[in-house]
């Protein structure tokens, strides 16, 4: 789960081997060559834009490198990591990020499941509901964030007015709650669509059989549907957790990270592009990458070890 996976660039040996091989495998080798040839452009672009910059970020993170004072640049080893890990700002941002991630993903799972059931089972207006749900999914995050921001701005917003002209975006707890609200509104439909794909795997006969056997609606849901939907649920949770952990857009618009509402991405952005401290910023980038890798490994282990039919929650 580190980023050091080697690129697929093994095209050289083909021409030389060609003459020595038996004719029988001609087709197989043509297929292999075509496979590499077709993948090569995609692999080259992906490696050039991600793998290489990551190595560069690791290198930068080991330097004292402040853009406004380039003459001070020098190798400092792990000092930047030490500075980040001993900074209360980093830990505060990490806690905020974890809270936002955990709470919003949990809410999205519950609401997404309800919405998936609605989109899958509703007896009329199914097309309308599905189409409407694609609007929050498709809308630009920034646009939605502005809508929430203005809604909660005293004097401008209908929601602020409804809550007696309160200014919830200026207080840490309520601002985080609004960030979570914006995140949940935007991504619940995506969660629901993934879960709906899982719902379509549940055979109708099985549900009918359970009903005939006297299972209540809740029992049919927890004993029949959930176990069968488990793979879809885990995929949806993995996608959303990793996505929520890198939350940036909503916070950038809603609070700019003020009043202690910044996520790790927001804090890193401030260090990089406001403070121009590339050494510390890069160290933060690498630490975020490590967090993401840890989340991914935990989930993938969850995939492998959990027996079918056991409790969904990890």
């Amino acid at each position: 789960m580190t980023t050091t996976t080697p690129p697929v660039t093994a095209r050289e040996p083909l021409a030389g081997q060609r003459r020595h091989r038996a004719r029988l495998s001609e087709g197989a080798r043509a297929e292999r060559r075509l496979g590499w040839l077709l993948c090569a452009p995609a692999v080259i672009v992906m490696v050039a834009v991600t793998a290489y910059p990551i190595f560069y970020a690791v290198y930068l993170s080991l330097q004292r490198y402040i853009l406004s004072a380039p003459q001070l640049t020098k190798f400092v080893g792990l000092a930047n990591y030490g500075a980040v890990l001993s900074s209360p700002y980093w830990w505060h941002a990490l806690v905020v990020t974890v809270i936002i991630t955990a709470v919003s993903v949990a809410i999205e799972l519950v609401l997404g499941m309800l919405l998936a059931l609605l989109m899958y089972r509703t007896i009329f207006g199914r097309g309308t509901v599905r189409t409407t749900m694609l609007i929050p999914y498709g809308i630009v995050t920034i646009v939605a964030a502005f809508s929430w921001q203005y809604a909660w701005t005293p004097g401008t917003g209908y929601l602020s007015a409804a809550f007696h002209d309160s200014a919830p975006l200026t207080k840490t707890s309520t601002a985080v709650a609004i960030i979570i609200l914006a995140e949940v509104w935007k991504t619940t439909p995506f969660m629901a669509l993934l879960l709906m794909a899982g719902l379509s795997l549940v055979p109708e006969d099985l549900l009918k059989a359970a009903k005939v056997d006297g299972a209540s609606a809740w029992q049919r849901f927890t004993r029949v549907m959930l176990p069968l939907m488990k793979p879809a649920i885990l995929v949806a949770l993995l996608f959303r957790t990793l996505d929520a952990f890198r939350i940036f857009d909503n916070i950038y618009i809603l609070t700019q990270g003020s009043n202690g509402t910044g996520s790790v991405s927001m804090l890193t952005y401030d260090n990089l592009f406001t403070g121009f401290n590339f050494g510390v910023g890069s160290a933060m980038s690498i630490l975020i990458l490590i967090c993401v890798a840890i989340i991914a490994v935990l989930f993938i282990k969850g995939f492998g070890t959990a027996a079918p039919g056991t409790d969904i929650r990890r």
Partner: protein
Amino acid sequence: MAATTPRQRAGWGIANTVAILLALIPVVWIVSLSFKTTGSITDPTYFPTHWTWANYSGILTTSTFIRPLINSIGIGLIATFIAVLLASMAAYAVARLSFPGKRVLIGVSLLIAMFPAIALATPLFNIERILGLFNTWPGLIIPYVATGLPLGIYTLSAFFREIPWELEKAAKVDGATPFQAFVRVIAPLAAPGMVTTAILVFLFCWNEFLLAITLTSTTASRTAPAAMAFFTGNSQFAVPTGSISAAAVIITIPIIIFVLFFQRRIVAGLTSGAVKG
């Protein structure tokens, strides 16, 4: 399902209405804001009391929004075209051919799909300044292609597995090379999947914000969402609420159109990879 009772119909009807309202309220709010006059914008009613087009005419006559809008469209279309082209080549190979390194390819693209954009922002910022790509179209197109590719490969390989491949065999029996079989037979069959993928990748490019604000510095290449975040009012004290709302509505229109026209395709694309793994 068995015959429905009026009670059930009412229950589903209420659930439908609640879901639709919750999805639309923030969208209608920003539309409503965009039609409010400067005087009534500080009046927190949900719908405008005085309607005006001034916010739209304001932003549509300045280059601070028109240029970014053109950038968004151009960068989005070019990045989508390249990403779908490269992704369909790779996805064909993944879905159809057996070759060593296939698993590595899938692994690498999944890793990239999960990448936090902030981790790329700094190194790309520095590299692009050195290469002269900073604040240019290619400077955004290249990272968008790279981040759109995993999504494309994932979605397209799921679609490609569904194609009737006997036709390809038939073409090969008739003497076509694997490449000819790809171009002449499979590509036309794959078109619907490619359209779906193109929509998803375009929506991603249209939505992208973090790289758009870090890899650009002027309206020469800044995309519309990034430009909106930097809007300022006419004076130091004027909050550009109306202009931002109008800009927000304009960049939302293409999405509404996509959603209305390609509803089924988008749903199919989003869920294609999820269940088959």
